[in-house]
């Protein structure tokens, strides 16, 4: 029984990270009907920004882990949000009326460019970086089940971000504007909503959340590398798709579902764990065939 608990905790941790990535995909699709394939690499940039902030803080003589953590998160979120808004302003909005395939391709290429830029220009960028453990490392043991304080904190931080996003979308004027743009661009414009600004804010929001996921990933695995966004982006996208692209709750459900599938793939199946990703993605394909619009489809009257 205690082992089940361990698997559950592992899965929840992974699911939280996946959900945060999937939420970004779903936000962008909800508001602008675009699929931004560079999302995973934006996350990687966020993780590196966070890592740079920690190194920078240490260099400035700030040794308090909490201060380093705050610096890391703030720097990563602000920097990556700016990057997301810039991508929206100069790459995605100009192509708004072009075929959707173009945006998909442009962002796919942008992702590769971001990855290579970090690899080539970040000092020693092609090597994995050891992300310092900034969270308390105490652990509680219950037989075979070890619960670590840092994992618990990370899960709660992730859930807080998701709840915060929910409140922002449903309870604030900004959220109302985002929902209005998602529903009907023309009407939103005539009602006096600054369309461009809302799109930029949405992209900044999604990218900032990706940066949090990136820093969480770094804190959890104590490592960041330039290729980390590739698989995470793909998993986040798949999670958003099985949950129902455009629906916030679908993305969260999808993220946890995918983490669960990977766990089952590694643990319960009789064949080698090397096939866990094969298994998880195969199930994604099956779900897509069964419910092409995802488990919680985007309602045409209410997006995001």
């Amino acid at each position, binding site marked *: 029984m205690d*082992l089940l608990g*361990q*698997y559950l905790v*592992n899965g929840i*941790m*992974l699911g939280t990270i996946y959900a945060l990535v999937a939420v970004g995909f779903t936000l962008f699709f909800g508001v602008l009907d675009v699929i931004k394939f560079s999302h995973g690499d934006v996350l990687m940039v966020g993780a590196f920004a966070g890592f740079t902030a920690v190194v920078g803080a240490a260099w400035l003589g700030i040794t308090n882990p909490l201060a380093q953590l705050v610096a890391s998160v703030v720097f990563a979120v602000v920097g990556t949000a700016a990057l997301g808004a810039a991508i929206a302003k100069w790459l995605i909005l100009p192509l708004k009326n072009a075929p959707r395939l173009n945006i998909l391709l442009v962002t796919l290429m942008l992702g590769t460019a971001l990855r290579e830029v970090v*690899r080539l220009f970040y000092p020693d960028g*092609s*090597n*994995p970086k*050891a992300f310092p*453990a900034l969270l308390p490392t105490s*652990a509680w*043991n219950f037989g*075979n089940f*070890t619960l*670590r304080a840092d*994992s618990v904190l990370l899960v709660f931080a992730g859930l807080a971000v998701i709840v915060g996003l929910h409140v922002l979308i449903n309870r604030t004027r900004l959220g109302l504007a985002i929902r209005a743009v998602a529903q009907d661009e023309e009407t939103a414009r005539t009602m006096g909503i600054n369309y461009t600004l809302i799109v930029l804010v949405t992209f900044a929001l999604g990218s900032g959340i990706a940066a949090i996921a990136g820093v969480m990933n770094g804190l959890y*695995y*104590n*490592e960041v*590398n330039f*290729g*980390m966004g590739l*698989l995470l982006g793909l998993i986040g996208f798949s999670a958003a798709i099985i949950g129902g692209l455009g629906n916030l709750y679908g993305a969260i459900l999808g993220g946890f579902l995918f983490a669960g599938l*990977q*766990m089952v793939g*590694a*643990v319960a199946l009789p064949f*080698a*764990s*090397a096939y*866990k*990703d094969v298994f998880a993605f195969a199930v994604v394909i099956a779900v897509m065939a069964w419910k092409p619009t995802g488990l919680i489809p985007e309602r045409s009257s209410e997006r995001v």
Partner: protein
Amino acid sequence: MSTILRFSVGAMLSAALMAAPLGGAFAKDKVKVAFIGPLSGGNASIGVGGRNSAELAVKIRNADPKAKYTYELFSQDDECKPNVGVQVATKAASDRKVVGAIAHYCSAVAMSTVDVYHKFGLPTIVWGAVLPDITYGNDYPEIHRVNGTMVNQNEVAADFMTKMGFKTWVILHDTTDYGKGHNAYFSKFLTAKGGKVLATFGVTADQQDFTAELTKAKEMKPDVIYFGGLTPLGVRVRQQMDKLGITAQFEGVSGIVSSAFLEGLNPKLSEGIIALREGAPVEKLPGGQYFMAEYDKAKFDQGPDAYGPFAFAATTLLLDAVEAVGPNRKKVTAYLGKVKDKDSITGPISFDDHGQNTVAAITKYVVQDSKWVLWEDSEYASGQRKLVGR
């Protein structure tokens, strides 16, 4: 233009043209040798250490007034990826000026490039990859290897660990030829010595999360977790073992004996890790003192790491071959095929009929205070410190 002027311009031109080849005849001919290894990515510290050592060998030779040629090192990054490896191997092999190659640390890469070297007839000396099939899986006369294979390494490892009293193992290995090879040989020797493998997990070479595999391993309560793979994955596995509260002894293979492995882990986690490697450590090598002195003199920005001496020995051997028979690939291959008891800083080199050097020594390492220490010299052997559960 007057005739005289035209004549004088012509004379000057022809004089200049004649002078050029004359000037060249006094300089030595240029010969290129290729170095291929992982210069970027998680195994870069090994690759760059190897590259520096090869460069050192070339520098020393170029400084030697008796040398017949001037050598140039053509160094290429295989990124420890088979597809990139084939590209750069083809690039080196198809360059007619390259007479030989010192190639590969990653076995999976070497496995996919040996065919290229054979096709182009490029004599190649492997400096770090340990999979037996690189030399024994083919009959290519071009392929040689100065370092040992993982067969001996795992035989000694199995013997050593069972004698220490460890009884049960869980094996994690990457699913490349390299990791699979380690798993196969270690399991075979371990079972023969009476050790028990409780479970074996194959993981992909770029996997990030091992919590599922490790949680399952934890349930089985093994004495030892054996990891067959390279440094980046080894760091992650060790870190996640700690996150799950697994206290079993961690045993690695030669792929984690690198400075990057120790830099990636905090000292508390790396303490007491055991790994074996073929060949003696640099300070115990016959030419180790000389090598380290020269290496320090060259002021490279990082150390030679675990396989630098092999890269140095391989490069020196290749340059000796070119000096002896000239920059001709076929002749160099023939020369290397006959190498017996040739002196090198790693000890005498003798190639068998598959081009494999018959190095015997396997070195046991244990991490003590964030350093790879010879087992015999460590506080673990003298009993001042204890391995997990001993």
